[in-house]
């Protein structure tokens, strides 16, 4: 009930704001969005509907494309008949398009919007801003609270406790970690945490910038720690066959207890029938007590292609989605009445500092973790911090390591070769 009220309040504020600065926008505006999972899709459709109400003369065409598919389609979309607004990611992921002059410089918008200073760096290349953030999310270990209670184990704080817990879980005939590595990036999340906990955030970033060799002993130490879990048989079998969604049922059925993933996985877990009493969340435990905790918290963004036709409308839309109230409303948890969604929500964190984090078990914990307990630093994610080619080769190597840990030397040699070529260019 409370959420519905806030949603109502938020939408009234939105319409209020609309009358305040209603430039007469007209013509067509085409948006291509990659928010294709059910909950984000509803949010995106809601955003467009609200924006359309504010600008009745504007004809908005929304095209939602598959999130993984979009990663391959974006370049064609940008170069031939570009839409007016698109979704993409911050940091290194937008670099090729910025360098090729395919993204519009939106620095002017950043002078007008307030409350985004904390993430300005992630959207800045050459002292200019190339897009706006609409959401970010924490990563962490989501786990089955009820199974923990049944086995009499508790949230760990150190890696030793984590492994001891895992042994108990394995002895009960379950697996500890669900993961689906068919599309590789989920393995990148594990490496991020293993490396940040073993060697610290700063080392992780040095590796991402190509300043450390992959064959370095510190990197090997990261893999040695990771291997402890692999040798225990902690991961579900045959994870190389599954996408991250296909691995979710293992958690839902109680065949595996943990999932190291972003907060976007909570909505599908709830859809799979798990209640908030059954799922909970904790920060990835410390491995090396001497390093500060670093966290993955990727930012998702909106951009205007350089070839867009209705840039006025696009700028207005970007301003709209970064507004404090809109960010509060879209990032809240999805509210459902049976199967009907009464209030769409991403279930993630708002970027605007003036937005409120809606009252939700996972959002609260995630927000607290990122603001108070991520003193090491906040990373974007393996495939966004590392340059494209290094990320592709890296994640393939990580998947191979998870299946055949004995191949490590060979994998590291190959990654080192790739590093030498990629960063030399």
């Amino acid at each position, binding site marked *: 009930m409370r959420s519905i009220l806030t949603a109502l309040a938020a939408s009234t504020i939105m319409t209020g704001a609309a009358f305040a600065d209603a430039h007469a926008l007209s013509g067509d505006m085409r948006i291509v969005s990659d928010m294709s999972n059910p909950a984000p899709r509803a949010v995106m459709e809601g955003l467009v509907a609200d924006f359309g109400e504010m600008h009745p003369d504007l004809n908005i065409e929304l095209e939602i494309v598959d999130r993984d598919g979009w990663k391959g389609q974006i370049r064609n979309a940008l170069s031939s008949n570009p839409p007016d607004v698109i979704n993409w990611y911050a940091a290194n992921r937008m670099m090729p398009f910025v360098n*090729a002059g395919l993204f519009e410089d939106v620095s002017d918008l950043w002078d007008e919007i307030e409350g985004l200073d904390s993430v300005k760096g992630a959207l800045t290349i050459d002292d200019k801003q190339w897009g706006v953030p609409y959401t970010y999310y924490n990563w962490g270990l989501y786990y089955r609270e009820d199974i923990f209670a049944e086995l009499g184990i508790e949230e760990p704080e150190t890696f030793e406790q984590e492994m001891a817990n895992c042994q108990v879980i394995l002895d009960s005939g379950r697996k500890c970690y669900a993961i689906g590595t068919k599309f590789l990036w989920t393995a990148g999340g594990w490496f991020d945490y293993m490396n940040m906990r073993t060697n610290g955030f700063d080392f992780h970033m040095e590796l991402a910038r190509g300043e450390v060799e992959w064959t370095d002993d510190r990197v090997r130490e990261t893999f040695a720690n990771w291997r402890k879990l692999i040798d225990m048989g902690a991961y579900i079998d045959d994870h190389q066959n599954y996408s991250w969604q296909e691995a979710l049922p293992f958690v839902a059925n109680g065949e595996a207890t943990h999932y190291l993933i972003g907060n976007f996985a909570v909505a599908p877990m709830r859809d799979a029938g798990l209640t908030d009493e059954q799922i909970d969340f904790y920060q990835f435990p410390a491995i090396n007590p001497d390093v500060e905790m670093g966290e993955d918290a990727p930012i998702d963004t909106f951009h205007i292609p350089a070839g867009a036709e209705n840039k006025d409308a696009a700028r207005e839309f970007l301003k709209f989605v970064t507004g404090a109230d809109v960010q509060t409303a879209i990032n809240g948890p999805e509210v459902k009445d049976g199967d009907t969604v009464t209030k769409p929500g991403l279930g993630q964190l708002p970027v605007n500092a003036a937005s409120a984090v809606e009252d939700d078990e996972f959002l609260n914990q995630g927000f607290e973790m990122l603001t108070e307990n991520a003193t090491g630093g906040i990373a974007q994610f393996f495939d966004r911090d590392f340059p494209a080619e290094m990320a592709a080769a890296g994640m393939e190597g990580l998947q191979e390591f998870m299946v055949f840990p004995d191949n490590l030397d060979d994998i590291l040699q190959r990654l080192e070769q790739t590093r030498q070529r990629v960063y030399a260019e």
Partner: protein
Amino acid sequence: MTTAPAVPTTHAAQPRRGWYRRNEIAITPWLFLAPGILFFAAYVIIPIFQSFQVSFYAWDGLGDLADTGTFIGMGNYRELAGDRNFEISFWNNIKWLVLYLLAIPMGLFIALFLNQTVTGIRLYKSLFFFPFVISQVVVGLVFSWFYLPSEGLLNTVIGLVGLGPINILGDPTYATYGIIAAGLWPQTAYCMILYLTGLNAVDPEQIEAARLDGAKGWKMLWYIIIPQLKPATFIAFVVTIIGALRSFDLISIMTNGGPFGQTRVLSFYMYEKALAEFGFRMGYGASIAVVLFMIMLIFIAYFLWSMWRDERAAR
């Protein structure tokens, strides 16, 4: 004006013909061919040469080649020579080409088996032909479910005889063979249809003559039937080779090139390097495409030569 000839000219009565009329026989075929040639040139021939050109550059595919590309000569090819992923993709292509040819004998034997008159044979024939009608994507999905390590039908069946479980698509040693087996299903059906049509054209008198000479069984098949099926075999060979080189969609659906790139073929590797999510190396992708083109050229040359030979024999 003219001196009047004593003999009337023979062609004076004919009106003077236009240039086109005079050259009609020579021009018309080219006019009909023009649209085809134009499009074939624009979409096939010219891009082939462009690929050759791009393969000498380091270029991210964004912007114009002349502005953002750097000429590096044979650099991409030198890198290919030491690229293990390229090597894996290349050998996978060879595996596809060799094993896919199994579709031809399998198609032939199913065709021989179905080439009889019993009630409902049309129904059986269409059931065998069915996999060729459904999309490759569906075939890929069906087989990836069939191969699933825990719930898949394959593991249930081999579990009954005490074998397994085996994760075909997750194991780098078996994954490529698993995908080829999936591809053989529709390809066999295609070859079967070609042979069924071919069997209709087999001369019954020759069979009768052979029978009088005492030929039967394998001898009959090998010396009488198969030689008469030569045109069908040739077409089956052509479409199977083409099918093996077009294996992209099955790989994309079933393994996405994985596990860790062990099921890629050259076309898939080219796509990953040049066009996919993390692929920003148009020049490197183009050099892979050139190598793939060279492989295809062997077959193209053979096909053209054998068609030319047949045509000459027919004259």
